[in-house]
């Protein structure tokens, strides 16, 4: 990354973190939603020990998926409304780098808190301790993928009427591989099986997303704002 691109990346990251810090209540909403979804799922299937053992990994991941989808609408929405997005598009820095900074900020503001909350709720779900490290690893590798893929679709739907419903519709099918590998890894870890294979697969999904998604999101923004 050239010095100029670095300064553009740093500028956007700093600003988005500052904005996030000033809108703390909005940051909390997806987390609260996350905990509510987990509670509802448990209420629906019963708090039987045998059921919970089987249920903990998928519940944690499904709830994370839904909560992150909820937060994605925010990535570009405000900038679109106040015209800052136009200024980003007319910057001489590569747009993909600026978008990457926005994605990084989204992960720091939403992904990391969600990861920490997930660790807290494992206590309520009777996840065996042996699976805790694996759960953390899948979330660490997986939540950035949420932000990366999500940014493309958030860019495509920014400012559309009914984007609140359209975005989940577009994004959830794309999360399928992540869901399968992550839940598989946590289940295997709970059974005491090796999980390196799944973790490598999630890591490769992450690597691919890092390479492709910022560029795709930049193209999506240019397409939408023209």
């Amino acid at each position, binding site marked *: 990354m050239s010095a100029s691109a670095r300064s553009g990346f740093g500028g956007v990251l700093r600003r988005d973190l500052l904005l996030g810090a000033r809108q703390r209540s909005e940051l909390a909403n997806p987390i609260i939603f996350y905990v509510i979804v987990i509670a509802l799922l448990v209420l629906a299937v019963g708090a039987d020990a045998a059921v919970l053992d089987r249920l903990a990994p998928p519940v944690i991941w499904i709830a994370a998926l839904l909560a992150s989808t909820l937060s994605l609408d925010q990535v570009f929405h405000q900038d679109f409304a106040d015209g800052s997005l136009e200024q980003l598009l007319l910057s001489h820095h590569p747009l993909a780098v600026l978008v990457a900074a926005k994605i990084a900020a989204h992960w720091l503001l939403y992904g990391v808190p969600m990861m920490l909350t997930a660790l807290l709720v494992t206590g309520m779900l009777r996840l065996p301790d042996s699976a805790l490290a694996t759960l953390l690893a899948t979330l660490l590798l997986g939540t950035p993928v949420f932000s990366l893929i999500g940014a*493309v679709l958030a860019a495509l*739907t920014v400012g559309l009427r009914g984007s609140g419903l359209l975005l989940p519709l*577009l994004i959830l099918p794309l999360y*399928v591989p992540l869901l399968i590998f992550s839940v*598989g890894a946590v289940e295997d870890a709970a059974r005491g099986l090796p999980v390196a294979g799944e973790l490598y697969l999630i890591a490769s999904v992450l690597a*691919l997303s890092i390479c492709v998604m910022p560029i795709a999101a930049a193209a999506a923004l240019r*397409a939408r704002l023209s």
Partner: protein
Amino acid sequence: MFTFLHKYGSPQHFYRLSRGLAPWFGGASALLFAAGLYGALLLSPPDYQQGEGVRIIYVHVPSAWMSLMVYVIMAAAGGVGLIWKVKVADAFARASAPLGAAFTFLALATGSLWGKPMWGTWWVWDARLTSELILLFLYLGYMALQTAIEDRRTAARAGAVLALVGLVNIPIIHFSVLWWSTLHQGPTLRPFAPPAIHMSMLVPLMVMAVAFMLYFAAVVLVRTRNELLELERNSNWARELAAEEAAR
């Protein structure tokens, strides 16, 4: 490449070309459908395990192939439209989507119909059926995005980005679902991929596959033409054309 696209990619040129080609594709497709169905329903033998029910594969397998092929074509057309700003490609991508979704739905429905007598249930979470279901979601998402964006040029370019992102994801989704199904179900019967397929079944299957492709070609040309007319309704050539048709 660029000049080639712009010469043959002009809406006007494409309109006249497709008007000439579409009936030929349609006619050829009808002939092959007749031949293929005759071969599939009357000439080919019933399967020794599956009985007469096996005949549904002559529709199921080609539509499953088409569902994937149309997505690739749609994403490719979208990419061409996005990079070289070719309107015909944009219209083509938009016109393909409902067809692809229809093929996907047909593959799912026939798979389900086949499943009832074979598996005793309408739906089995078989890896291919599940992948096909997710592909249907991708098509529906693409169409929903296209309708949500009012300006057609913006819609075309946004749709192209979505289709390309989907294209990158399809192999990963398919692999993950395959991995998932082996994990949860163990090896299942692979009904649609018998180790060796007899010529008496292979020939009608291939004839049907070509008939499906020609059907797609014919219908997508007609649909693209409609899209182009709507897209270009303000341009001179479209107005001249309308006047010409009215005079006829």
